[in-house]
């Protein structure tokens, strides 16, 4: 269902001809017939195959590495360790969903002096076959001096915790502190007078929450092919969300000029934030250099993916909120400690924004801590930090509403932010559609349907994501048959070839089928930030809009020449250029200039800042088996302000995907470690993402409150839908069995424990 509440895009000339339709995706045939080339499908002449030696320990000093025996295995062409990496200084780079320090990235790619988590890469081998490389890896001798690991975020914050990075110092509210620590930073947002706010409350609820480490769970493992050519030029083929980001990281880590690195993005089988940073890419380049400039391919298996990539932070969150009996929030306090894995950079910053973003608050305090532990370095994961944060705050909102005896959507409506309100961390909202999602949820048949049967419950939760603009560039040229080739640098994950081509077709008033989009390498188009932050349809779509305007202007000039009239007299509408009664069709001009004129090409680059945030409100019905603790999702409805749905099917797909991942996070997904820090469940058997049988058909409502900052009103849509599910499911479980679940995942075992605790108390 699509509900158009507001049509104001700056190019708002609705009704649209192309936008809002559901054409076939240009990459569809290749993908469903197995012809699409993904990371592991790249094969080059004389290619070698790599394998990685990974740390069996969570925390240890490397006292020696002896690779000599591995090097002697017939078929082995190169072995590399951190000693082969250039020494680099602190370099901060924004990958799109978080800033990272490349000195730490270098340490993550191949462990420098210590291994910091189970699965940390230590050395790599390139050989003439994968089997040889794997056997050679076993012959590398590493001596470790074991160190005590620390895995829990609150344990890691204690004064006597084992120190993971000796040089780390806390950045306390922007200032560096003295002394060794695992706390990388402490941030704070503060407004009003907390004491006064809580004094005005009739009811105060305070709860603590814990959430486990979860992985993005993309189906395609990381894979990269590297060719370090004899002339010093490096080419990398890889599955990535951002080819330019990979180019920049490889260039910095290997100390190469950026122009000496070309990255060719393959098709990508999911990323969700986990394919922004480098893992294999610098390693295959190093191996290639050492192996006589032969190309080298490395593909991770699932265990390596789970041990050493992703995941997102486990967290400890405390939320305290006060409200009056008539349903007005008076104050809120939140404390968030997020584990970043072995290197600083958890998403606690965005979590601290998400946690109170939907609500008007005069008095608030938010403290956030970024803490390192002996787990894989955290990577962005769809609305980084948001799911944990909203799980906590939406449960407390629900509890307040229940205590007051107010409908939970009504309670949210009474406190919902609208245009002109200040977000918890400061910025003032432009036009947003939160209230509209609450109204749409209230009016939805799901919310009114009676819920019958024992142990069944209904929950709702809302969520916010800020989205991102970033930089996008496209180039386009007009073919003699009047079609348009569109070159873009945004890897297509969620159908963006289609959604970008549709915006170009709408702008140029041509058919969608006449636009041929192609995702090209870093040498073939201007700079593009990654496909991340829900930015691609918004930002690269905007670049396509700009290039469309330029192409039409150029076509007008051509039309004026052909009609022998003044440029100013040319009008363009519905594919026809006209002047004083004479006219020429778009395709006719294209054909004639091929014979006599000059080719029509254009490029555009944008860096938009007004990337309207997204709000969603979810409704879920569950049934809990009180004997086993298992939760069945009976019905799910996701309502979201999407700005303008360019291709509604792919927008609905984003909502489905966000809900599916959010439900997995809510119910079963978590990393399980033993006391020594070994990851025990590094497989999809025991790391349980939902299967098709674990979810019902997910209903969606696309509310269109146009983003005034985009020509067609687009808002990012990909991340918001993963924010509410855990909170919504928790609230539904409470409704079903009367237990407030405060740890993620809410797995059968933890629900049984909670039920037993309830019986015993």
């Amino acid at each position, binding site marked *: 269902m699509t509900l158009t509440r507001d049509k104001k895009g700056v190019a708002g000339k609705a009704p649209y001809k192309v936008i809002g339709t559901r054409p076939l995706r240009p990459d569809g045939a290749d993908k469903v017939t197995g012809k699409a080339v993904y990371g592991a499908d790249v094969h080059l002449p004389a290619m070698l195959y790599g394998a990685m030696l990974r740390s069996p320990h969570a925390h240890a000093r490397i006292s020696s590495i002896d690779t000599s025996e591995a090097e002697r295995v017939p078929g082995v062409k190169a072995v590399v360790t951190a000693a082969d990496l250039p020494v680099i200084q602190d370099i901060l780079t924004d990958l799109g969903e978080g800033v990272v320090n490349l000195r730490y990235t270098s340490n993550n790619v191949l462990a420098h002096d210590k291994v910091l988590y189970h699965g940390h890469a230590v050395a790599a081998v390139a050989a003439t076959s994968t*089997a040889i490389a*794997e*056997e050679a890896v076993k012959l590398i001798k590493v001596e470790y001096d074991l160190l005590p690991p620390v895995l829990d975020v609150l344990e890691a914050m204690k004064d006597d915790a084992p120190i993971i990075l000796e040089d780390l110092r806390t950045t306390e509210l922007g200032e560096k502190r003295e002394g060794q620590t695992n706390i990388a930073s402490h941030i704070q947002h503060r407004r009003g007078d907390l004491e006064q706010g809580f004094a005005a409350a009739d009811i105060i609820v305070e709860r603590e929450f814990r959430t486990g480490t979860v992985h993005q769970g993309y189906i395609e493992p990381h894979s990269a092919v590297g060719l370090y050519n004899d002339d010093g030029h490096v080419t990398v083929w890889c599955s990535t969300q951002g080819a330019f980001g990979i180019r920049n990281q490889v260039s910095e880590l290997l100390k190469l000029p950026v122009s000496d690195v070309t990255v060719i993005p393959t098709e990508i089988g999911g990323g969700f934030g986990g394919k922004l940073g480098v893992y294999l890419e610098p390693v295959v380049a190093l191996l290639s250099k050492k192996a006589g400039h032969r190309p080298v391919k490395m593909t991770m*298996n699932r*265990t390596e993916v789970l041990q050493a990539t992703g995941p997102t932070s486990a967290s400890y969150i405390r939320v305290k909120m006060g409200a009056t009996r008539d349903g007005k929030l008076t104050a809120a306090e939140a404390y968030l400690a997020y584990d970043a894995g072995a290197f600083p950079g958890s998403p606690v910053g965005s979590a601290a924004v998400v946690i109170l973003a939907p609500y008007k608050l005069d008095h608030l305090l938010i403290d956030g801590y970024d803490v390192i532990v002996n787990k894989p370095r955290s990577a962005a994961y769809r609305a980084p930090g948001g799911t944990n944060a909203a799980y906590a705050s939406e449960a407390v909102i629900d509890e307040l509403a229940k205590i007051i005896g107010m409908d939970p959507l009504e309670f949210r409506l009474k406190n919902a932010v609208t245009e002109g309100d200040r977000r918890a961390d400061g910025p003032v909202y432009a036009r947003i559609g939160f209230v509209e999602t609450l109204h749409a949820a209230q009016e939805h048949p799901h919310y009114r349907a009676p819920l019958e049967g024992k142990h069944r419950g209904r929950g709702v939760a809302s969520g916010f994501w800020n989205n991102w603009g970033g930089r996008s560039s496209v180039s386009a040229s007009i073919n003699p048959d009047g079609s348009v080739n569109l070159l873009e640098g945004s890897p297509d994950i969620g159908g963006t070839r289609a959604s970008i081509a549709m915006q170009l077709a709408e702008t140029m008033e041509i058919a969608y089928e006449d636009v041929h989009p192609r995702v090209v390498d870093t040498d073939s188009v201007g700079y593009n930030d990654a496909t991340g932050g829900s930015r691609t349809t918004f930002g690269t779509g905007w670049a396509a809009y700009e290039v469309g305007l330029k192409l039409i202007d150029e076509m007008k000039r051509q039309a004026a020449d052909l009609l022998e009239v003044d440029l100013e007299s040319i009008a363009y509408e519905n594919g026809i250029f006209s002047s004083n009664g004479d006219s020429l069709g778009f395709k006719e001009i294209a054909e004639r200039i091929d014979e006599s004129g000059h080719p029509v090409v254009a490029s555009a680059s944008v860096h938009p800042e007004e990337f309207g945030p997204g709000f969603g409100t979810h409704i879920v019905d569950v049934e809990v088996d009180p*004997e*086993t*603790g*298992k939760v069945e999702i009976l019905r799910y409805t996701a309502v979201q302000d999407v700005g303008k749905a360019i291709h509604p099917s792919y927008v609905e797909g984003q909502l489905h995907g966000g809900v599916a991942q959010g439900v997995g996070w809510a*119910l*079963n997904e978590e990393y*399980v470690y033993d006391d020594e820090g070994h990851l*025990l*469940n590094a497989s*999809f*058997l*025991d790391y*349980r993402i*939902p*299967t098709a*049988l*674990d979810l019902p058909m997910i209903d969606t409502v696309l509310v269109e409150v146009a983003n005034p900052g985009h020509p067609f009103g687009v808002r990012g849509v990909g991340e918001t839908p993963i924010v509410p599910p855990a909170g919504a499911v928790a609230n539904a479980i409470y409704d079903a069995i009367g237990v407030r679940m405060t740890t993620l995942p809410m*797995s*059968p*075992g933890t629900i*049984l*424990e909670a039920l*037993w605790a309830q019986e015993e108390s």
Partner: protein
Amino acid sequence: MQAFDFATPTTVAEAVELLMGRNGDARILSGGTDLIAQLKEGRRTTSLVVDVKRIPEVTELRYHPESGLKLGAAVPCVVLYGDKEIVAAYPGLIDSATLIGGKQIQGRASFGGNLCNASPAADSIPAMIVHSASCLIAGPDGQRSVAVEAFCTGPGQTVLRDGEFLVAIHMPAPPVRFGAHYLRFIPRNEMDIAVVGAGASVVLDEAGERFEQARVALGAVAPTPLLVAEAGEYLAGKPVSEDVVDEAARLAKEAARPIDDMRGSVRQRKHLSAVLTRRALWKAIERARG
């Protein structure tokens, strides 16, 4: 994966000769759904893989209403549940056959392989136990038969001695008013491994109101799949009632001796042993009553 020899014997004697003196280092290949993954991931090593699927006895499937079922050790699950008579006679077996892996896996995976892999959480073993299955083993000293509940001796460990391999599994024909069921608890709805599995079979009196015989078996609550003899002995002769079934479930819970691991805690597994035994018994009763 390391290099290994590969052999394809066509007779039982030839296979025994290949296995002799390998002291358990040789591996039998049936459907390969466990073995190939284990070798690829380095969880097992071997110097010899013996594919037994060309030995006629190993792929034979024969059912007779009096003599029962002879299930060759390499017969895949799909063949079993593709046979209507077998489906009607061995419902507990079929429950487990449809739970193991997805359709593709069921096309290769065999009950014999599941048994020899000897996972404490194997779905097919409690089902075979409640169907009173026995294992036909060939070896240098000829053939011997072992009750299925005695076949596994620990995780990944079996009674097979040097030179021996599993040829077939035999299950007696079910008596009248027989019913059986196997179910497991998994956190998801598919693609998962049992936190606890429970099988039950019953033979009821003519009125369908009294247990004549019963068998209860559990998976994932001990180093091997477990026959809960106490529960079967208790039920024999008792009326079918909620209290009686609950008591049998309690006995199953008593018999369970699980460990804490990432798939479940001791308390959760003991609790589930009772819940699943009760559910398995009621379903078996429903089936016995027709």
